[in-house]
C-alpha cells in the first residue's frame, strides 16, 4: 500500500477543488489535490460554456442582496438562506480575484461585460468568449496551483472511501488506477469536491467523472445528504443532428446573446402555454422550459428526434458571426448552418441541487470532513439559478479550503488509524478472490442510466419511482463482490467501484423523490401536481446500520448553523 500524508486532502480537481487547494495553501497548509482523472480537466468546470453570476454593479447598479433574492426565488422556498447568502455576498471577491489572475472575463467600455440570464432581475453574468468560460477558468486555476509548492497534485487516483476514526475524518483510501495499487492518504482535514451526479442519466452535460462519488463517500463516512430529489435538467441540451467535439449545452450562450426561438414540430412558439411567453428575449427559466418541452413532445408536437426546435434562422448571418466567431465554423464542420436550419434540443441532466449537508464553514457533521462546489447541497434549494454553479465552485471552494486549513492547523494530529485504513483499502487485483460470474459492468452502467432517465427524470410518478427502486436494489445484488482482474487500469474494477457509488446515490434520489408528494422546482410529480405549502421541508438522508434513513426538517431549520 502506498502511504501519503498531508494537512489538507482535497478530493476532486475541478473549480471548487482547485480553489480549495489554493485557499488552504495560502493559509499555510500542505495540500494534496487528488483526482481520478487529470488535474483540472475532468470535472464539470471545464465544460462550462458561459455564465457566472455576480452582483458587480459596474454595468448597471446591483447589490448582492438582489442576487440573493433571485437565488432564493429560483429555489422555490427551499434554499438554505445562510449558504445562499454566502454564495451571493462573496461572489464579487472571487470573480475579481479570478480577474486579477487573468481569466479574461469579457469587457466592454472599461468594465466587465455582464449578460442577462433567465431568473435574474438584471444583467449579472460575466463570461469568457467564445463559449470559453470553463476552459479559461480551469486554465487559470491550474496556473495558480502550479505556482504553489505546498500543493501536491496527484492525478489517476480514485478515492474509494473516507477513513473515519473516533467519529472524525482522518484521511482516505483509494486506488492508483495506473497500477492497481492501494493508496492510503492521511490528512488532518478532508475536502470532498467531486461535483454532482449527472452520469446517472443517459443524456447528460457533465463529464464521465460526475457519478456522485462524493455523495457516496460522504454518506458512508457518516455525513448527511440534503435535497437529493432535485436534479436539474438543462432544457435545451443538443439533441440532433449529431455533433462531435461540442458540448451539448452550447446553445445557451446563443440564447443569451441572440434570443433564438423555441418551436414545436408545427413551427409554433409554445412557452406561453406553460406560463412564460418569450418575445425574442431569453427569459424562460430552466424548470418551466423543461416542462414545456416534455409536454409538447407528449402531445405529439415534438421534433423528429423527440425534442423541440431551436431556431436562429431569423438572425442575420453577420450578427451570428459577430456573436460567435469561430464557433460558426465548428458548427459548419458538423453540417449545421444556423442561417438556414433549426437544431433539435431536449432536456439533459445538468446539475444537482442536492448534496452533502454542511454548515456555513462547509464542514459536514463528521468533524474535519468538508464539501465544496456542486458536492454541497442546500444553497440552490429546488432549482438552481442560471450562472450560480461556477460562482458556487469559487466561493464554496475558497471557504472550504480556508476553514479546512484553520481546522487542520488547530488539530494536533489527524488521529490516523492505519488499521481502519487497511480495512477499507482495496486489495490489489491479484489478491482478490475470484468472483464466480462477473456481470458486464459496462452494460449495467448503460442500464442504470436508461433506468434513471426513463423512470427518475424530471417528471415522476409513484409507480415509476417504485419500479426504479426495485430494479436498483436488484442491480445491487447482481453486482456481487468486487471482481479480481488485471492490475493496470482495470476497467471492470473501475466500473464496479463506480456502480457501487452510483447505485447508492441513485437510491438516495429515488427515495427522496418518492417521499416528496408534491411538485416543486426540478421535482415534478405527475401524480401530485402543484407546490404545497406543507412541503416547505428539506429532506435529509443518512446511512445508518447499512441502510438509508430519511428525515424531514422545516426549510428554515435546515439553514446552516453559524460555526
Amino acid at each position: 500500500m502506498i502511504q501519503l500524508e498531508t494537512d489538507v486532502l482535497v478530493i476532486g480537481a475541478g473549480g471548487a477543488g482547485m480553489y480549495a487547494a489554493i485557499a488552504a495553501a495560502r493559509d499555510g497548509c500542505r495540500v494534496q489535490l487528488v483526482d481520478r482523472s487529470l488535474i483540472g480537466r475532468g470535472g464539470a468546470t471545464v465544460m462550462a460554456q458561459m455564465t457566472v453570476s455576480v452582483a458587480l454593479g459596474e454595468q448597471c447598479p446591483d447589490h448582492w442582496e438582489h442576487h440573493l433574492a433571485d437565488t432564493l426565488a429560483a429555489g422555490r422556498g427551499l434554499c438554505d438562506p445562510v449558504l445562499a447568502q454566502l454564495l451571493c455576498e462573496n461572489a464579487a471577491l472571487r470573480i475579481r480575484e479570478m480577474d486579477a489572475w487573468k481569466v479574461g472575463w469579457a469587457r466592454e467600455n472599461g468594465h466587465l461585460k455582464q449578460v442577462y440570464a433567465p431568473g435574474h432581475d438584471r444583467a449579472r453574468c460575466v463570461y469568457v468568449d467564445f463559449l470559453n468560460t470553463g476552459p479559461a477558468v480551469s486554465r487559470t486555476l491550474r496556473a495558480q496551483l502550479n505556482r504553489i509548492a505546498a500543493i501536491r497534485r496527484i492525478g489517476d487516483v480514485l478515492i474509494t472511501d473516507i477513513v473515519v476514526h473516533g467519529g472524525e475524518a482522518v484521511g482516505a483510501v483509494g486506488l492508483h488506477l495506473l497500477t492497481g495499487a492501494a493508496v492510503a492518504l492521511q490528512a488532518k482535514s478532508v475536502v470532498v469536491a467531486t461535483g454532482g451526479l449527472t452520469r446517472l442519466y443517459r443524456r447528460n452535460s457533465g463529464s464521465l467523472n460526475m457519478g456522485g462519488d462524493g455523495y457516496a463517500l460522504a454518506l458512508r463516512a457518516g455525513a448527511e445528504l440534503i435535497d437529493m430529489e432535485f436534479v436539474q435538467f438543462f432544457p435545451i441540451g443538443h439533441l440532433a443532428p449529431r455533433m462531435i467535439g461540442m458540448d451539448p449545452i452550447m446553445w445557451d450562450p446563443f440564447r443569451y446573446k441572440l434570443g433564438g426561438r423555441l418551436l414545436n414540430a408545427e413551427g409554433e412558439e409554445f412557452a406561453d402555454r406553460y406560463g412564460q411567453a418569450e418575445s425574442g428575449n431569453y427569459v424562460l427559466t430552466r424548470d418551466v422550459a423543461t416542462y414545456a418541452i416534455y409536454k409538447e413532445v407528449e402531445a405529439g408536437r415534438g421534433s423528429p428526434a423527440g425534442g423541440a426546435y431551436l431556431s436562429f434562422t431569423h438572425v442575420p448571418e453577420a450578427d451570428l458571426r459577430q456573436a460567435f466567431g469561430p464557433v460558426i465554423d465548428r458548427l459548419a464542420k458538423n453540417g449545421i448552418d444556423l442561417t438556414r436550419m433549426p437544431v433539435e434540443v431536449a432536456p439533459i441532466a445538468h446539475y444537482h441541487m442536492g448534496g452533502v449537508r454542511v454548515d456555513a464553514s462547509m464542514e459536514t457533521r463528521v468533524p474535519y470532513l468538508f464539501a465544496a462546489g456542486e458536492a454541497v447541497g442546500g444553497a440552490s434549494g429546488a432549482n438552481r439559478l442560471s450562472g450560480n454553479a461556477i460562482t458556487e465552485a469559487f466561493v464554496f471552494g475558497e471557504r472550504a479550503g480556508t476553514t479546512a486549513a484553520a481546522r487542520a492547523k488547530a488539530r494536533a494530529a489527524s488521529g490516523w488509524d492505519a488499521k481502519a485504513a487497511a480495512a477499507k483499502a482495496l486489495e490489489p487485483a491479484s489478491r482478490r478472490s475470484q468472483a464466480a460470474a462477473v456481470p458486464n459492468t459496462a452494460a449495467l452502467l448503460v442500464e442504470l442510466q436508461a433506468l434513471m432517465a426513463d423512470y427518475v427524470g424530471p417528471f415522476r410518478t409513484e409507480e415509476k419511482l417504485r419500479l426504479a427502486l426495485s430494479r436498483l436494489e436488484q442491480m445491487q445484488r447482481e453486482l456481487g463482490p468486487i471482481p479480481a482482474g488485471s492490475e493496470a487500469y482495470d476497467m471492470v474494477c473501475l466500473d464496479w467501484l463506480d456502480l457501487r457509488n452510483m447505485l447508492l446515490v441513485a437510491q438516495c434520489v429515488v427515495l427522496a423523490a418518492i417521499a416528496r408528494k408534491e411538485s416543486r422546482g426540478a421535482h415534478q410529480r405527475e401524480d401530485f401536481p402543484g407546490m404545497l405549502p406543507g412541503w416547505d421541508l428539506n429532506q435529509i438522508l443518512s446511512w445508518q446500520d447499512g441502510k438509508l434513513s430519511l428525515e424531514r426538517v422545516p426549510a428554515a431549520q435546515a439553514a446552516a448553523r453559524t460555526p
Partner: protein
Amino acid sequence: MTTRTARLHIQRGTPGAPARTETFQVPFTPGQSLLDGLRWIRAQLDPTLAMRFSCINANACKECMIELEGKAAYACTVRLREGDMHIAPLHNKALVHDLITEIAPRDERLLD
C-alpha cells in the same frame, strides 16, 4: 436512419507482453464518433477493453487521445466510417493497458 458497420482493429495489451490486435464489428449511424464505437464495444462485447475519456463529447478533457492509422487523434472528434479503422495507443507515451497510456504531466503523477 441507415445503420452501417465499421470494422475496428484495436491494438491491445499491457507493458512487457506482446501486443495483439482484436477486431470488432461496430454498427453505427452516420455522424457517430469513434468514442461512441469504443463505448459500444465495452457495453455490448467486451467490458475489459481499456480506454479512457472524461468529457464524452466536448473535446475539453483531451483524455481520449489514441492513434488512428498511425496518427494521434481524439476518439471523440473522429467519426466512425464504414470499413477498416486501425486504432492503437499513443506510441510515444508509456503504455498502461490497451488504449491507455501515461498522459498525465510528470509532476501530477503518484509514482515516478
